[in-house]
């Protein structure tokens, strides 16, 4: 596949790893924010190519992991209503709420459907005028324009039976929360390339300055990630703290102004609760008043009690990189990919799921060297 395969070149990857090894003179802890980058790192074994001085922490860049439990419970309650067709991306279907997940709702007779795009949900609403179609709008800034366009079209076309359960979150406030924590050990960030394709990367400059931390906008293929890590470590070795763009073929400084215009038309910035991290001000999106009719939270009265996180679950600390999965008292016993208690076990690139997969190769669940 063009513009994909070339960035998976094994020889080039090896050379970049060697270059990185020559560059690194002391331990550094980096965090990649985006779940898609974590996925690539695990799938291609990139962390095994890195010199051992470089410690990669997988950040909270995954909507699966950060959607608050009460919103999942809300989704489940709405999906169980007989008049509702509940549409969601595949990622969210197995995330546990307080008692069950969306797939269980489907098993109990709820009409839960997986969609590829918010526009598919809108089409379902047009095709089923006698049903209420609710779309679970999760995702970072990358996904917000798509959701916004669906709502905008719904308004223009008068599709009144369509509504959104909004769970969009923004990356920079999460990064700041991590950096502001007294337990923070992150020294450099790989910023999410696709989020930046939409938003640009100006908003990272104050963060880099305030916390004196290098931030490199990074792509998703192995060579992108290796180069992103290289640029980040080079800054650390040289004592710089700037925002750099590795993903130049896709990301510009100002991002995509059309995409931004579309989602600003529909959404405004609001506080949002992040699962495992608590409420972060100005970190989420909420529907603007003129689109309020499309808000599923207003359309469907809340009649369920508020959800409870399992007290033993330390997902939040794991997402911030402050604890490892094997520090958790229920890791691998009560909490497994088959019975996940928290989001990092549900998501296949969540830290807990990844560690679980490697449990038989080592003791203490620590990531083992390559078995090949």
């Amino acid at each position, binding site marked *: 596949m063009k513009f994909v395969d070339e960035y998976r070149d094994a020889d080039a990857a090896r050379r970049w790893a060697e270059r990185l090894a020559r560059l690194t003179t002391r331990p550094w802890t980096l965090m990649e924010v985006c779940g898609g980058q974590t996925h690539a790192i695990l799938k*291609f*074994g990139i962390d095994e190519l890195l010199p051992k001085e470089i410690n990669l922490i997988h950040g909270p860049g995954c909507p*699966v992991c950060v959607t608050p439990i009460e919103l999942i419970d809300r989704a489940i309650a709405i999906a169980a209503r007989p008049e509702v067709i509940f549409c969601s991306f595949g990622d969210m279907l197995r995330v546990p709420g307080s*008692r069950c997940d969306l797939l269980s709702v489907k098993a109990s007779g709820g009409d839960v459907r997986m969609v590829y795009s918010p526009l598919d949900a809108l089409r379902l609403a047009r095709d089923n005028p006698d049903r209420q179609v609710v779309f679970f709008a999760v*995702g970072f800034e990358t996904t917000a324009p798509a959701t916004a366009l669906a709502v905008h079209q719904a308004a223009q076309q008068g599709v009144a039976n369509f509504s959104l359960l909004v769970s969009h979150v923004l990356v920079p406030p999460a990064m700041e929360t991590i950096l502001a924590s007294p337990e923070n050990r992150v020294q450099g960030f790989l910023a999410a390339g696709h989020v930046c394709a939409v938003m640009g990367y100006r908003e990272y400059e104050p963060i880099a300055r305030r916390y004196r931390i290098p931030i490199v906008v990074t792509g998703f293929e192995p060579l992108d990630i290796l180069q992103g890590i290289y640029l980040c470590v080079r800054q650390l070795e040289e004592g710089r703290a700037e925002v750099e763009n590795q993903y130049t073929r896709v990301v510009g400084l100002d991002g995509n102004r059309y995409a931004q215009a579309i989602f600003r038309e529909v959404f405004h910035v609001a506080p949002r609760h992040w699962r495992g991290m608590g409420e972060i001000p100005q970190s989420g999106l909420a529907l603007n008043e003129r689109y309020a009719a499309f808000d599923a939270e207003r359309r469907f009265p809340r009649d369920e009690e508020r959800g*409870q996180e399992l007290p033993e679950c330390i997902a939040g600390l794991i997402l911030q990189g402050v604890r490892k999965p094997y520090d958790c008292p229920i890791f*691998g016993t009560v909490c497994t990919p088959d019975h996940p208690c928290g989001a990092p076990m549900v998501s296949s690139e969540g830290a807990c799921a990844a560690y679980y997969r490697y449990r038989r190769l080592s003791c203490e669940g620590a990531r083992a060297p390559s078995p090949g």
Partner: protein
Amino acid sequence: MNREDRSEERPLGPSFGCPVGRVDHAQILLGHGGGGLLTHRLLEQVFRPAFTNPLLDARHDGAVLTVGSERLAFTTDSYVVRPLFFPGGDIGTLAVNGTINDLTMCGARPLFLSVAFILEEGLPIEILYRVVASMRQAAQSAGVQIVTGDTKVVDRGKGDGLYINTAGVGLIMHGLTIAPTAIRPGDAVLLSGDIGRHGMAIMAVREGLEFETTIISDCAAVAEPVQALLTAGIEVHCLRDLTRGGLATALVEIAEAARLHIHLEETAIPIQEEVRGACEILGLDPLYVANEGRFVCFVPLAQKEAALDILRQYPVATDAHQIGEVREGTEGLVTIKGTLGTSRVLDMLSGEQLPRIC
């Protein structure tokens, strides 16, 4: 926590000790039919304890029975695919080929099938004609006869139009034990062709995910190449056809049953470009995507070339390759060396693999 814990499964329910934050498994979920971990648990916790006997407990695709001086293979399968018709086949071809392949995986020559239909009230007869015509053709191509059957009709709204159950009997004419327990360290792992076609062909016509493609399901009978291997005297240790759950799931099951380590080379696994493209945009891993006309075969390393030469003579296995090897191990493990030369562990998925955005 190690793999052995799985054999003494904790029962589902309050004794598990954690009421909050857990998925409620008091009901059957779609994932229980996915071929992965949930299916596995259902088998281990509900069916096997109820029906246990040595033949069943051998845990293979079909049962190998001794009747008089003959060995027979006996298997059954049910087909609930939606949509009923998809590029490259339909529920009928799936049903006939699926059971033929299960028998083949025991090393048997498939001979006779039974077919039972569960029809939904209101199903157009024309659809039934088409399915039955496909079944006839598939059976004829493979030289098997459909010798008995049954039909039931359920109320409108209680079935997806049409469900089919098939059972099959085949004759085992070799003296080998073909099972995971026969696999030895050093064996070569052979794959009969490219993967992921069936699952992606179905995805392409599934509501909400439609895309334009010429991906055709690989649904086919694989009896001929396998029989050729056996007739040529290849010492086949194990066979497994790849169905739901894909290549990875089949190998994890085999590794666990054999208590050995299977190591794969990702670059050796053929995947059609279209399948790759579809998997990329939906975020699916082709290793876990369903197939219906592919199998893996474990043979001693010394016979690998001879086996591949034989397989490649058959249209359904022209793209056969060695994709890995078996290593010593104390418990089941599957690892794969990827394109960058690093290796990762392959595990069973909990339920169906779902498209993702993240």
